[in-house]
């Protein structure tokens, strides 16, 4: 049975009607020409009519068949080579899904073991003439001979990286694109629904999937450590669970090696645990569930910074600022002290508001310059505007503001803007506000976000930003400008500030600038890996057109299937060439007759 690699091209067969249509369209009532020697014409046609009709019919047939042959060649016809051992040289991309979900234990053995076994069977079918690539959760196609790749498959472990199956299929297609040999893709996967994304495979795709269902599973989807830094009194974490296990699961959390806290958690609910205090510094928080069939998602790690709350010198003259300081103090987010001066330029860290009296602005600018601050207060702007939405402030209305002008080149240190101009900036240990924290200047003091803003302003912005990044292994996570080194335990990586860092494994990574720790990155499994529910076969066929979904042990039998098909494109092209030459010869013969 003839198959087609590009069956949509068969729509071009409609073009075969073109010669017939042209012939029919060309037929019309011809003009009359008076011609005395009609008797000779009648004699002539009587003798040649049959031959000419035959020639015309043959030409029409040749032209129609020529179009049919070209369309067939474009559709990539293939013919199964029955009774022929082995297969013609082919190209194969083997995608082996060793994402975290493949670590699930099924019937006493990890899912990955089944996948590896099927992968080795596929590779065993390869011959030295075949080109074979292997794509794993690492995402990089690796070419090698079948023996080396089989060894690699044998040593393959569960990767902490998620594998986007649609992206992997697209990558496989790109690998096969330049190949002249018939190509194919074999995907061996647990078909986790969350990993299936749409793709349009160009090469024949065989999907090998386990026939047994996945086990019920629950995992930690999120570990939230709340506002940072934590005080030395400790802090609270919130743990969210995902999965399809309905039972209550024991949850344990601890700050580094300090005494752990326990709770019972359920899928779909969040558990909040209070962790005890610790001395100032960076600490690792670990939350862990009771073991189930997939262990990789039972633990989640995060980094927290513990520091004494800021000692703030608040100006009692400013009503709203004073009230905010009182609330923060009562909530132990700040203490009274001289670590941070709020409202004016102090001897240490300062949050500076513009003076109420414009006459004092010059003196303030001079003091800022003397302090080495690269920002100045510029002209007063009375046009109402809004802050541009951002993490620091959100969107609030600004009624009056001073333009903040940078004395240095560029606009480094801008934390928030209003109407496109810098409105909240930082230079060294000084934070400058473009407006006074007064409703006459901005609506921020009377908005709901005022207290979080003040907490952020005093505990993080004024004391130095704490950078906390999150991501999954393999994902690029941005690092702040000043970071030079990333450290995890004893291991260190040199990085370029402002770039990104890809954590290879699950864990907490600290961002260093010299000896100072500027922040941390928490790398944990992609929470989608927790959901082991497989995608139904029908959905797979809909998302990946032409895919053959088979049981894992059957995948090897279908590998190199395109190589076991006789490619009929060549014969059809040769046929088209012969038909074209025949048409040219016949047409030339007719021209000679004329």
């Amino acid at each position: 049975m003839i198959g087609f690699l590009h069956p949509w091209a068969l729509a071009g067969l409609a073009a075969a009607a073109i010669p017939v249509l042209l012939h029919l369209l060309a037929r019309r009532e011809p003009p009359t020409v008076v011609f005395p020697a009609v008797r000779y014409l009648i004699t002539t046609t009587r003798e040649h009519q049959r031959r000419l009709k035959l020639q015309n019919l043959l030409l029409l047939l040749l032209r129609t068949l020529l179009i049919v042959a070209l369309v067939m060649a474009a559709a990539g016809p293939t013919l199964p080579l029955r009774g022929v051992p082995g297969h013609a040289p082919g190209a194969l991309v083997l995608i082996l899904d060793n994402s975290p979900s493949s670590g699930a234990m099924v019937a006493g053995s990890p899912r990955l073991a089944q996948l590896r076994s099927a992968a080795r069977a596929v590779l065993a079918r390869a011959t030295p003439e075949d080109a074979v690539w292997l794509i794993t959760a690492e995402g990089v196609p690796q070419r090698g001979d079948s023996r080396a790749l089989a060894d690699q498959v044998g040593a393959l472990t569960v990767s902490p990286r998620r594998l986007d199956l649609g992206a992997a299929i697209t990558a496989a297609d790109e690998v096969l694109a330049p190949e002249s040999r018939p190509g194919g893709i074999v995907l061996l996967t647990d078909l986790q629904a969350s990993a299936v994304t749409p793709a349009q495979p160009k090469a024949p795709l065989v999907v090998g999937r386990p026939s047994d269902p996945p086990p019920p599973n629950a995992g930690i989807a999120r570990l939230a450590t709340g506002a940072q830094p934590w005080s030395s009194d400790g802090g609270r974490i919130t743990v969210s669970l995902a999965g399809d296990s309905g039972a209550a699961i024991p949850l344990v959390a601890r700050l580094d090696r300090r005494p752990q806290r326990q709770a019972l958690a359920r899928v779909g609910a969040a558990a909040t645990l209070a962790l005890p205090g610790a001395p100032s510094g960076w600490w690792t928080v670990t939350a862990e569930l009771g073991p189930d069939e997939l262990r990789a998602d039972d633990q989640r790690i995060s980094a927290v910074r513990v520091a004494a709350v800021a000692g703030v010198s608040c100006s009692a003259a400013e009503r709203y600022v004073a009230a905010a300081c009182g609330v923060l103090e009562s909530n132990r987010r700040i203490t009274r002290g001289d670590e941070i001066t709020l409202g004016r330029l102090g001897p240490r860290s300062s949050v500076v508001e513009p003076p109420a009296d414009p006459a004092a602005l010059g003196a303030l600018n001079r003091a800022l310059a003397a302090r080495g601050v690269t920002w100045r207060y510029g002209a007063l702007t009375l046009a109402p505007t809004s802050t541009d939405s951002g993490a620091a402030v959100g969107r609030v209305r600004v009624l009056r503001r001073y333009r903040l002008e940078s004395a240095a080149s560029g606009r480094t240190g801008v934390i928030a803007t209003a109407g496109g101009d810098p409105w909240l900036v930082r230079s060294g240990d000084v934070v400058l506000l473009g407006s006074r924290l007064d409703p006459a200047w901005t609506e921020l003091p009377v908005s709901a976000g005022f207290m979080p803003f003040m907490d952020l302003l005093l505990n993080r912005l004024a004391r130095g930003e704490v950078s906390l990044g999150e991501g999954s292994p393999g994902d690029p996570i941005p690092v702040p400008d000043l970071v030079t080194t990333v450290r995890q335990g004893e291991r260190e990586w040199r990085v370029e500030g402002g770039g990104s860092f890809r954590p290879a494994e699950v864990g907490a990574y600290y961002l260093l600038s010299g000896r100072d720790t500027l922040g941390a990155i928490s790398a944990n499994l992609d929470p989608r890996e927790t959901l082991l529910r497989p995608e139904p076969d029908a959905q797979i066929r809909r998302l990946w057109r032409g895919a053959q979904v088979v049981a894992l042990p059957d995948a090897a039998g279908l590998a190199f299937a395109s190589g076991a098909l006789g490619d009929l494109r060549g014969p059809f092209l040769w046929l088209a060439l012969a038909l074209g030459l025949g048409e040219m010869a016949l047409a030339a013969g007719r021209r000679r007759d004329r």
Partner: protein
Amino acid sequence: MTRFARLDLLDPLEVARLGGIEVTTEGVVEGFLSGLHRSPRRGFSVEFAEHRMYQPGDELRYVDWKILGRNDRLYVKQYEEETNLRAMAVLDVSRSMAWTGAPETVLPKLDYARRLVAALSLVLLRQRDAIGLIAFDDEVRRIVPPRARLSHWRQLVQTLAELEAGQGTAAEPALRRVVDQLRRRGLVVFVSDLLLDRALALTALRFLRHRGHQVLVLHLLDPGEVDLAGPAEARFEDPETREAVVLRPRDWAGAYRETLRQVIGEWRLACRRHGIHYHQVITTTPFGTVLREALAPAPATRAG
């Protein structure tokens, strides 16, 4: 041009544009005769022709007594008949003769034939030969008995000028009417496009040959009849019979040329077989060229 050029060698259409048949034909004949090195007079003379063995019944006055005295054998002298040539032009004026494939550049066959017959007549009359005319289409239209007076030419030309294309073509009755006009052996010039019943026409021509006449067939062909052309596809219609055929000239030009070649070959062969002189005349051929071929001394032919 008219003063210095030889009209017999000009394109027939150009000659026709110079004036009426009478004027231009005289010019053609003047040019034609001035180009000849000897008289085109055909081989009728009073000279001795040959000896042959005496056969019982021969008149004794033709016995060559000198040979009898020398060799003791009876031979008789044979002489060519001493007479002026009497000729009849038999002109086809059927509808097909009025056709030309290119009216702007080529004379219709009938106009060409009128001038050709007029020129031929003038040449013969100047030799004191007699010539007459029979015009026919599907029946005999005009008969001008042969006369040898030079003034007879005016009558011939007038008759030719008055002729108009008729309908069909029936050559046999016209050719048989020649016998009434030529009591003695003479010359019959049959001018036609030969789009007629060949068998009947050949029968009549053979009949004339049997009656001892020399027969000259001038087969007129328009260039448009030689090379088939026209629109991509056309309905070709016979002006006489209204028979029609639809075809694409480009597809059929080659085969048509072959058919025409066969038709001409068959006419030529049939004529040669019966001692008839056949000339194919394309209507763009200068009149002088045709006259030269038509009036060239005929090879010896077996009389009647």
